[in-house]
């Protein structure tokens, strides 16, 4: 019955409790999820034969499509990590996988924390997966809108522009609270700078900038430079224009054409976002195929694709797309990943804990910052070479990989940390 439905719709879903996952995957199906399988973390520490499959899970064990989905997840050749949240939604994560060895067409996805269990999905092909992904994450708009941040744009400059979009919302809320409508919203430079630091530090996904920085996988590891040209992007791209307050002559930023249009657009119609990253298994290790962030609004699907060059500079390709264009773009991105095209050169895809350098510590908040950063990406404080001192990094006793602070399990080999 489930198979008939799946053949008609191209999608098959089932839920399995954490307690049943080990008996199902390891004992019944005889699978041994590899280190980069999304099944590895929930199965960490499970010993073969140590559990018993419940009666509720027995039908799943009999279902051929369930077995296919789990086989793909256990042995992926392409991994598509998605982190959704932002706006009004809580953060959640799911990973979709493709496996050349198991099935050249199908895609499987796992949501490890869905209503207290794991939700697993099987898609008959890439088109079915992308169609579902768009329903989940994109807006249905078809009309073209102006792209106020056309490519290429440095990530550092984009940070300023997105905070300008958030700043418009701040001003809109302020004018509401003060019962002071205004035709020409403005913001003081000091408030802009302070609120940007707070935004970076906050990880509050209700705002666009923190949502981009924290939902996009591994974007926090990019080293941000500090150059005068980056804040100049505010005026160059028409987001904020320097002005003087009438009467006092105090410096102000007035919202320009881009700041007003995008400010209103996001203030009124932005609900959620998704950050995503595709990594591909190659003979030389895992490589990043693409990394992006999608912020849909009532007017457009704002797609941001990130590329890091060999010097560590991150450039962004931003497009404001209709639904059809986004559909084709995502098909092409994932198709290229499956075919191994356009992979990043150099170091293996993050996370590769054993390959990371020891992180420095911010003297202001104590957070970990990538070595060589000019600013702390936790609190926004300016760093110098003297201030950011390397700190000792805990390592896994089993495989030697670096451990995140407070980690109970190694994300590299799954071993419990002491």
């Amino acid at each position: 019955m489930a198979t008939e439905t799946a053949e008609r719709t191209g999608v098959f879903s089932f839920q399995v409790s954490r307690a049943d996952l080990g008996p199902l995957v390891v004992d019944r199906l005889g699978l041994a999820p590899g280190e980069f399988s999304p099944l590895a973390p929930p199965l960490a520490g499970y010993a073969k034969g140590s559990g018993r499959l419940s009666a509720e899970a027995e039908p799943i064990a009999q279902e051929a499509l369930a077995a296919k989905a789990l086989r793909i997840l256990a042995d992926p050749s392409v991994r598509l990590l998605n982190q959704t949240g932002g706006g009004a939604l809580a953060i959640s994560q799911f990973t979709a996988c493709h496996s050349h060895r198991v099935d050249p067409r199908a895609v499987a996805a796992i949501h490890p924390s869905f209503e207290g269990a794991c939700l697993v999905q099987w898609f008959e092909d890439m088109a079915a997966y992308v169609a579902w992904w768009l329903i989940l994450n994109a807006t249905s708009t078809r009309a073209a809108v102006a792209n106020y941040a056309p490519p290429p744009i440095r990530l550092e400059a984009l940070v300023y522009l997105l905070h300008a979009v958030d700043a418009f919302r701040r001003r809109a809320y302020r004018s509401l609270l003060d019962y002071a409508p205004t035709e020409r919203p403005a913001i003081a430079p000091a408030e802009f700078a302070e609120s940007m630091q707070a935004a970076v530090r906050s990880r509050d996904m209700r705002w666009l900038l923190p949502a981009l920085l924290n939902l996009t996988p591994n974007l926090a590891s990019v080293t941000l430079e500090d150059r005068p040209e980056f804040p100049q992007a505010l005026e160059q791209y028409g987001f904020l224009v320097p002005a003087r307050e009438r009467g006092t002559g105090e410096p102000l930023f007035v919202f320009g054409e881009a700041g007003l249009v995008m400010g209103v657009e996001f203030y009124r119609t932005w609900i959620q976002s998704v950050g995503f990253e595709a990594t591909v298994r190659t003979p030389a290790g895992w490589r990043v195929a693409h990394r992006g962030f999608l912020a849909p609004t009532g007017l457009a699907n704002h797609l941001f694709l990130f590329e890091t060059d060999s010097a560590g500079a991150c450039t962004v390709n931003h497009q404001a797309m209709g639904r059809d264009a986004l559909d084709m773009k995502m098909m092409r991105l994932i198709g290229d990943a499956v075919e191994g095209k356009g992979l990043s050169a150099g170091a293996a895809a993050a996370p590769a804990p054993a390959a990371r350098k020891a992180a420095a510590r911010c003297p202001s908040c104590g957070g970990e910052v990538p070595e060589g950063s000019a600013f702390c990406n936790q609190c926004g404080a300016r760093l110098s070479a003297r201030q950011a001192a390397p700190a000792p990094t805990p390592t896994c006793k089993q495989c030697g990989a670096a451990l995140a602070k407070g980690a109970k399990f190694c994300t590299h080999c799954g071993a419990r940390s002491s």
Partner: protein
Amino acid sequence: MASVREASRAAFSAAERRRILKDLADARREMAKAADAFNRTGPAEAPRLAAALDASRQRTLDLCQAYEAGLPVLPLSRCPFTGRVVRHSLDTFDIDGPWWDSERPVRPIEDLPATFFALSGALRLGADPPDVPFLCRPGPEVPFVVPRLLAEPDVRAVVSSVAVGPHRGFPVFYFAEPTPHEILRVDTWGLTQYVAEDPYGAGYVSRSYDVPVEFDYDLARWIRRGKLLWIAPDDGTLRLRSLVEGCPYLDLPGRRYPLGIRHGEVFSVLIATDGPGAAPKGGAGPR
């Protein structure tokens, strides 16, 4: 953003270009004379005259190749889909070179990105046009867009500006992702045809026509819709801009019809029509 305005190869100097153009004009005259003599000769003289004709033809070809090799190849635009800089050949010295000859153009094969769709353009005359024997069709004097191209959901255009001797050129590059193969494009700037690839990668030649519906000079409307972006004159970084405010290409003075220029005379090559669906009629102006 770093400046990308430098030409990608060393172009000929003004003096070298002048010499090539003079020699090319002489060679073409010689070839015409040789062809005329060959056509009127009898069998006895034919081999000698054929050899002379072949020699002058080869010399003409060699000079065309020298001109083509010396043309500047400039960064003129940027793709709004990929951010990639687009380089294109252009005779920036004046409009008297065979790059601007709409009847016998001499242009290299361009290295263009996969998202390139078409190149149109305009040129505002900054001085009296040169006395050239060929028909130069540099477009109107005011930049325009082709509405039916921008009506395609996957097509966007970028307008920029470049000096062409004493004149000002306004190339308008059209980009598409993905390429809508089934629609008619627009003649390449300065020519009466365009070259494209079909979905199977085979090249083909086609042409559009200079009818009024092909020219929309209201650029602000297309910028607001997100279909047209612009690059500021003399912006070495070729940064794409989407704002109507501050756009230097709006409401420019100049003739708003496609120009024909021959022997220093300027006239309209707009094909007048009687309304939608009517067959185009009329043609070029005085010769």
